[in-house]
C-alpha cells in the first residue's frame, strides 16, 4: 500500500533514542520499601522502510517486547522519539485527570498501526464471539455497519485462511493456531500499514508455527505491510525478516540484514546467541564447537556499568567495564555496539 506521493527513501517508522523506564518494588522492601527503576529500554534507535520487515531478537528481559509496545505507543516512552510517516507520535499524548492518555491524533493513527500478541489464549475475550471480536475495531472507527460490516468480517476470516462461518463461535472452540489467525484478522481489520507482531508463534506447536509464518509472509506481500517481528527464535526471525536487530539488556547490540546477522555476526553476544541455537542435524551437532556463555543475564534493575554484556563477554577488556559502546557502523547497513570489533 505504498503511497504514490511518498519518497522511497523516507522510512515509515523512525525510532530515535527510545527509552522506557518502569518502577519496580525494591527488593526486600515488602512494606512500602520504595521503588527501584528499571530501564527496560535504554536508548534504542532504528528505522523501518515501507514494506520492510525488521526482526527484533533477544532473550527474556532484553526489552524487545517493551520496544514494540513503545513504538506503537501502547506504552508512553520515557524518553526519545517515535516518528510514524512523518508524524511525531510519541508526542501525541496529553495528561487527563492525572494520567497520560492518547490525544485525538494518536487515536486516529491507531487504524494504521496494529499489534499481534503472543498468547492467542489471553488476547481474545472468551465471552465474545469471533464476530464481536472482529467487529470491535470496525465499530470503534465507525467503519461499515450492519450487513456490510458482517461481510467485511467474513472477508477478514477468509484472508487469514479461516472458514467465514466461524463468526458465531467463541475463542475456546478453536486451537491455538486458529486463535492466532483470529488475532491476526483483528489486527488487519482496519487496514493497517504497520504491524508489530510480538512473539506471534512462540505459544504454538512446531507444525503450526510454519503455517502462521507463511500466513504473515503472504499477508505482507498481498497487503504491502510493514512488519516488526519480535521473537526469541532466531531461525524464525531470520526466515521472515529483511533486517534483524539483536537486543541485550535494553539496547541494540547489533543491527544488519538477516543474512549477515546469521552468517557473519560480529558482536560477541550475537555470536554466542547463534552458536547456542540447536540445529536439527545430529552429525553437525556432534562435532559442533559451541561458545557457551558463562553466567546469567544481569538484573536490569542494576545493570552492569559500561558495556551491558561485559559480565558474560569472552573478549572483555578493562575499557568495557566503564564505557558504554555506542552503536556504530561497521559496513553499510551493519551496525555494532562493541569496543573490540574492528
Amino acid at each position: 500500500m505504498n503511497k504514490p506521493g511518498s519518497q522511497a527513501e523516507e522510512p515509515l517508522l523512525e525510532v530515535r533514542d527510545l527509552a522506557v523506564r518502569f518502577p519496580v518494588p525494591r527488593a526486600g522492601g515488602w512494606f512500602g520499601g520504595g521503588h527501584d527503576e528499571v530501564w527496560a529500554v535504554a536508548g534504542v534507535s532504528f528505522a523501518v522502510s515501507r514494506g520492510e520487515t525488521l526482526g527484533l531478537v533477544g532473550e527474556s528481559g532484553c526489552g524487545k517486547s517493551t520496544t514494540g509496545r513503545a513504538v506503537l505507543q501502547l506504552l508512553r516512552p520515557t524518553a526519545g522519539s517515535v516518528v510514524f510517516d512523518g508524524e511525531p507520535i510519541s508526542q501525541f499524548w496529553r495528561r487527563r485527570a492525572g494520567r497520560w492518555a492518547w490525544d485525538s491524533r494518536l487515536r486516529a493513527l491507531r487504524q494504521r498501526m496494529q499489534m499481534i500478541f503472543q498468547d492467542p489464549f489471553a488476547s481474545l475475550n472468551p465471552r465474545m464471539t469471533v464476530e464481536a471480536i472482529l467487529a470491535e475495531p470496525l465499530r470503534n472507527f465507525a467503519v461499515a455497519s450492519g450487513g456490510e460490516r458482517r461481510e467485511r468480517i467474513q472477508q477478514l476470516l477468509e484472508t487469514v485462511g479461516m472458514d467465514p462461518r466461524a463468526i458465531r463461535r467463541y475463542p475456546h472452540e478453536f486451537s491455538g493456531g486458529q486463535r492466532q489467525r483470529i488475532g491476526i484478522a483483528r489486527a488487519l481489520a482496519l487496514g493497517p500499514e504497520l504491524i508489530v507482531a510480538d512473539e506471534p508463534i512462540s505459544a504454538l506447536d512446531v507444525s503450526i508455527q510454519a503455517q502462521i509464518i507463511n500466513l504473515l509472509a503472504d499477508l505482507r506481500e498481498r497487503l504491502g505491510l510493514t512488519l516488526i517481528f519480535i521473537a526469541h527464535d532466531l531461525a524464525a526471525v531470520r526466515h521472515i525478516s529483511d533486517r534483524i536487530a539483536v537486543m541485550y539488556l535494553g539496547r541494540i547490540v547489533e543491527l544488519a540484514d538477516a543474512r549477515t546477522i546469521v552468517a557473519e555476526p560480529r558482536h560477541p553476544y550475537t555470536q554466542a546467541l547463534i552458536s547456542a541455537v540447536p540445529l536439527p542435524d545430529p552429525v553437525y551437532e556432534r562435532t559442533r564447537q559451541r561458545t557457551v556463555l558463562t553466567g546469567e543475564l544481569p538484573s536490569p534493575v542494576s545493570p552492569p556499568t559500561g558495556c551491558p554484556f561485559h559480565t558474560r563477554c569472552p573478549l572483555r577488556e578493562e575499557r568495557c567495564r566503564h564505557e558504554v559502546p555506542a552503536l556504530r557502523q561497521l559496513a553499510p547497513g551493519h551496525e555494532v555496539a562493541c569496543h573490540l570489533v574492528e
Partner: protein
Amino acid sequence: MHAASPPATATETVLEVRDLRTHFQTDDGVVKAVDGVSFAVRRGETLGIVGESGSGKSVACLSALRLVPTPPAVHPTGQIHFGGRDLLTLPERELQRLRGDRLAMIFQDPLTALNPYLSVARQLTEVLEVHQGATRAAARQAAIDMLERVGIPDAGRRIDQYPHQFSGGMRQRVMIAMALLCGPELLFADEPTTALDVTIQAQILELIGELQADLGTAVVLITHDLGVVAGTTDRVAVMYAGRIVEEGTTAEVFANPLHPYTRGLLASMPRIDTPPRETLQAIPGLPPDLGHLPGGCPFHPRCSLAGDRCRQDYPAVVVASPTHWAACWEVKVSQ
C-alpha cells in the same frame, strides 16, 4: 551404590515399557492420551521422545513414574519393567523408595516443581536422608557439593535460600542437583530447557550431558525441539496422538525420516544453517483432538500420502533397519 543392581553391561536395558495405555475419563468422553506405547532405555543412553502438545509424551513418562492422578486418569495398563519389577503393580511404598533414588525426574518449570516454602537445603537434604539414611551434616555437605557441581556459585551460602531467590536457569540447576543427588539409574527430563533462554539452554544441556557421563545415568528427554534432540540423544521416538509413530537412532531418523509426520516436522522448521526458502513447508490442518480421533491412522487428515487404507486401519510397521521403524501404510522403504 545399589547392592541389588546387577552388574552393568553396555546394552543392559534399564527400563522397558510395554503397551502402556493411559486414558482419561472426561465429560467429553474417553481421552486416550497414551494408547499402546512401548520403548526401552539402555544404561547410560539418552532416548529422546519428541512430539507436540497432546502427543502424550509427558503423560507417558508421568505414567511410567505413576505420577498421573487417578481419577481423572483411569489406572494405566501395560507393563513398566525397571530393576526386575513392574512399576505399574508395585505397592506405593516401594515405588516411593525408588522415586528420587534410582528413578528421578526434572520438570519444565522448576518454580512449580520446587516447594516455595522450603529452603533449597531442606529440599535437597531430604532426598539423601530419606533414601540413603545420611546424617543431616553429611547430607548438607553432599548437597553443597552437588550444587557446586551444577554450577551454582557460592553454594554454601545459597543453599539456605528459597527457590524464588534463584533465577530461572539457577532454579533449573537446583532441580537437576536434586534429581541427581542419589545417582539415579534413570532420569526423566520433561522439557527441561523449554522455559529457558537459548544461551542458558546450552549451559543446562551441556551440564546434563556431563553429569550423565559421570554417573552412567540413562536419560529420557521429552521435548518438542528437534534441534535439542539432534544434539543430545542417541535414539529418538516420535509420538503423535498417543502413540509412537517412528523410532530409530537419532542419526537414522534425521538422515532418513520415514513417517510423513516426522518428515513434515523437519521440513516445517526454519533453520539458520540453510538459505531461507520463500515459504516453509507447513504441515496442513490442526493438531489431533484426542477425544475425537479419526479412524485409521490418526495423522491421515493432515497427510499428503493418505490413501483409503489409512482412513480405515491403524498402520502396520515398516522397518528400515533393525533399529529404525515407522507406523505408516504408504511410506516406501529402500533397503
